[in-house]
Structures are given as structure tokens and as C-alpha cells.
């Protein structure tokens, strides 16, 4: 009986050691995000919030994944110097530059640009965010 207990313990110990030394097969990028095999690279939705964290969109965004543009009309009177953009991306994608807080979109002549990077980190698509304000 004692013999079996010792053998079981040894087998468990060896398995534990082997598991612990197993090489990590999943690569991560510089942000610590998993690099996958996915090649999807697009923006699926766009939102713009005001200082009170309520939407300033007057209608749904028009996202052209071929021309890589996001056209968004905002409510009359929206102050675009301090709004919070939110992007929904295809699975495993990431955005560059990162959205870290309120952003100035007031320079309508020079639309802001955001690059979507695919899950395999091989494909990059730069989107222009074209904002228009409702007029009276």
C-alpha cells in the first residue's frame, strides 16, 4: 500500500514540474494583448459622448469600411472640444492612438484619424472621423 502512495506522489510531482516548465505558445504584443490569427480589421460602431457622458450623436454613424471613414452628425450646440469617442472594433483588433479620455474634435477641417490593427497585428487601416454639426 505504502509503495503505491509513493509512486502516485512521484508521478504527480513530475507532472507538476513539467506543467510549470511548459513554454508559453501564445504571443502577446507590446500592450500585453494576445496576438491571434484573425485578419478582420474594421470599425463596427462609433459613439461620441459629451461631458455629461450622454450621447451627442443626432443619428447613427455612417461607417465606410472600404473608404475607411466614419461620418457622424452631432447635435446642434455640441461643443466638440471635449467629447469622448468610443469605437467598437472587429474581434481581437486594437486602436492606435488609444482613446484615453476626452478628445478635441473641434478642428472640423482636419478630421482626426485612428488606425485599427487586426488581431494578427499584420493589417492596419486608418479611419478618418468626419464630424458635422446639425445646423439651424
Amino acid at each position, binding site marked *: 500500500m505504502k509503495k503505491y502512495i509513493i509512486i502516485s506522489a512521484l508521478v504527480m510531482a513530475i507532472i507538476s514540474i513539467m506543467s510549470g516548465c511548459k513554454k508559453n505558445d501564445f504571443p502577446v504584443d507590446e500592450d500585453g494583448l494576445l496576438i491571434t490569427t484573425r485578419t478582420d480589421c474594421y470599425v463596427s460602431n462609433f459613439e461620441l459622448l459629451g*461631458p*455629461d457622458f*450622454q450621447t451627442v450623436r443626432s443619428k447613427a454613424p455612417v461607417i465606410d469600411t472600404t473608404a475607411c471613414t466614419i461620418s457622424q452628425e452631432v*447635435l446642434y*450646440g455640441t*461643443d466638440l472640444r471635449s467629447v469622448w469617442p468610443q469605437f467598437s472594433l472587429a474581434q481581437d483588433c486594437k486602436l492606435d492612438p488609444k482613446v484615453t479620455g476626452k478628445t478635441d474634435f473641434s478642428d472640423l477641417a482636419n478630421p482626426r484619424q485612428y488606425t485599427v490593427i487586426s488581431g494578427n497585428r499584420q493589417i492596419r487601416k486608418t479611419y478618418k472621423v468626419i464630424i458635422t454639426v446639425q445646423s*439651424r
Partner: protein
Amino acid sequence: MTINFKSYIPFIAGIVLLFTACSKSDDYAVPTPKDQLQNDCIKRSLGPNLVGSNIEFAYAMALPKTRGKLVSAQVEASIQGAAGTYLENRSFYTNNSGVDVPVKIGDPSVNNGNATTTNFTVDTNAATLRYFYQVPEEARGKKVSFTFTAKSSNGETVTYKMGPYTVSKMDMALDLGVNDADSSYISIADMKVYRRSQPVDPTKIDLIYMYRTFPTVTFKHALVAPAAPKEYLTDFVVPNNATNDVRLVKAFNLRDQQLARQQYGIFIDDPDFLAQNFTNMPDYFLNIKQEAGAWVETADGKYRAYIYFNVVDDAKKRMTISIKRYTMK
């Protein structure tokens, strides 16, 4: 056939555990009252302590029947309360319907300097009196504490200390009415609303209230600074020399309990004004919704305020607003 007793060990252990879990707890014993005059106190009012408003306490005192009766109750504040300070001469109990029912126990309280005293005129050996301390101007930004004292007929005295409590620096103005027809000018410096039809110092005008509708955009109820772009002032004729340019930060779901006086459990206090960032903020707020709010910084940076929109009435083109204001300089 042999029986392996070791295999029954987990079963027996489980049974033992079950019995342990179901063991009866000790019987409750009614506590024996102390043979002396006793007291206790709770603070009933919640939120920041504002100048002009009340800090409310409930002070309970009791002694065994054999040791006499209550003679007087007194509260001494570290800073003399304003004229509205009083100690109840009625003790309340809550009936089966949840209603607080008063029982008169003495004469109305008397204020003498920092002390407020109620003398008992009925033979009672237990009472709970409420104390309302109206915060005076002298207490603004300071700490105030209270000493509650009860006396019995056999000469016993007990005291209970409460505080210190910090009195906020901010001011509050409730239920100011603005309407599109006339009462349009809001002064943060004065915490008042001025009428267009009456003479007003244009330098006092921080915000203009208006109600407008347009076929293609939503404008409705709006607060606009006199110096805001003409586009947002629409057809409004701004008085000469009205040039204040306040900054506004919209807020949503920030329903201060003292401003809204509803069930909300949010309180805006002094540090909240200091934490606001008005950089790159507009000088107008369009399409105002009921129960929303706006942080405001005056043009000279002297005041910061939070305006809460209690009532927004499209039909009558009016709003009821309440303001908390903090002096920065």
C-alpha cells in the same frame, strides 16, 4: 466478510459536523437596566452642514422610576446657533402606522448664549427630544460640536458629546424660478434671478435663461452666458455691458439630495467644486432636461456653482432651479 471500519470515518465525521451546526445557541437574556440616569444621542440630518440650514439630533434620556424624574435637558454648542435654534419640548414616539406622535413634556426651550434648555413640566422618567441647530454665518468653514446634558430630580447629571462637525463653506439657494417671458437673468454672485422688466446691474448677469424651438434642431430650455456666440443667444437682446462669460459643464444623474429634496442619496460638498475642470468648456447649455444639472464657474473665477434643474416645463417655458455655490477666492 470483514468490515473496514476506516471507510466509515468520513460518514461519522459528517454526522458530527451536522450536529455541531445544529447545536442550540444560548438563550437570550433581557439586559438588566443600570440603576442610574442614562442618555444617548444620534444625528438625524444627513449630508453637508450648510449655513442657514438645520443640523438635527435626537437626544434620549431615561432613569429608573425609583430614582426620580427628569428635570431638564440642555444642549451647548461650541458656536452659538442662529435664531432658529431650539430644543423640542415634545417627546416623539412612533405609532403602529409609522407616524411620529408628539407628547408635550415641558415649556418651549430657551436660548441663552450657546446653551439651549428645555425644562420638564410633566412627571416623566424617559424622553427623546429633538434638537435643531440652525447653522449661523459665524460657523462657515469651521467645526462645531455639541454637549447634551440631562438632569434628574435627585441631582444626577449625564452628558453626551457629539461632533465636531465641519460646516461647509458653500451656500445654497432653493427653488428659484426662471421663465422665458421675464425672469431670465441668473446671478451666481447674488444667488438670485432678476427680471428683464426691472433695472438690473448688467455686470451681475452670469447666465440668461431662454426657451426657443426650431424646426430642424432641438434647442428648448437653455442657459447661455451673455458673452456666448450670438448663434446661441438667438434673438435675445443682451443688455449693454453684460459681458460675463461663465463656463458650464453639463452633468447628468447628479441629483443632489439637498437640492432635489427627493430620494436621491448624493450630496455635493465643498471638495466637489474644487475637483471640477472647466478647461475647454462651453459658455452655453442647450436642451436642458429635468433633474439634470450644470457646474458653473463665473467669469472672474470667484465662484463655482452647481445648478440643479428641479422643474423643466415646456408648456409654460419656465424652469425651477436650485443652486449650491462655493466661493473660490
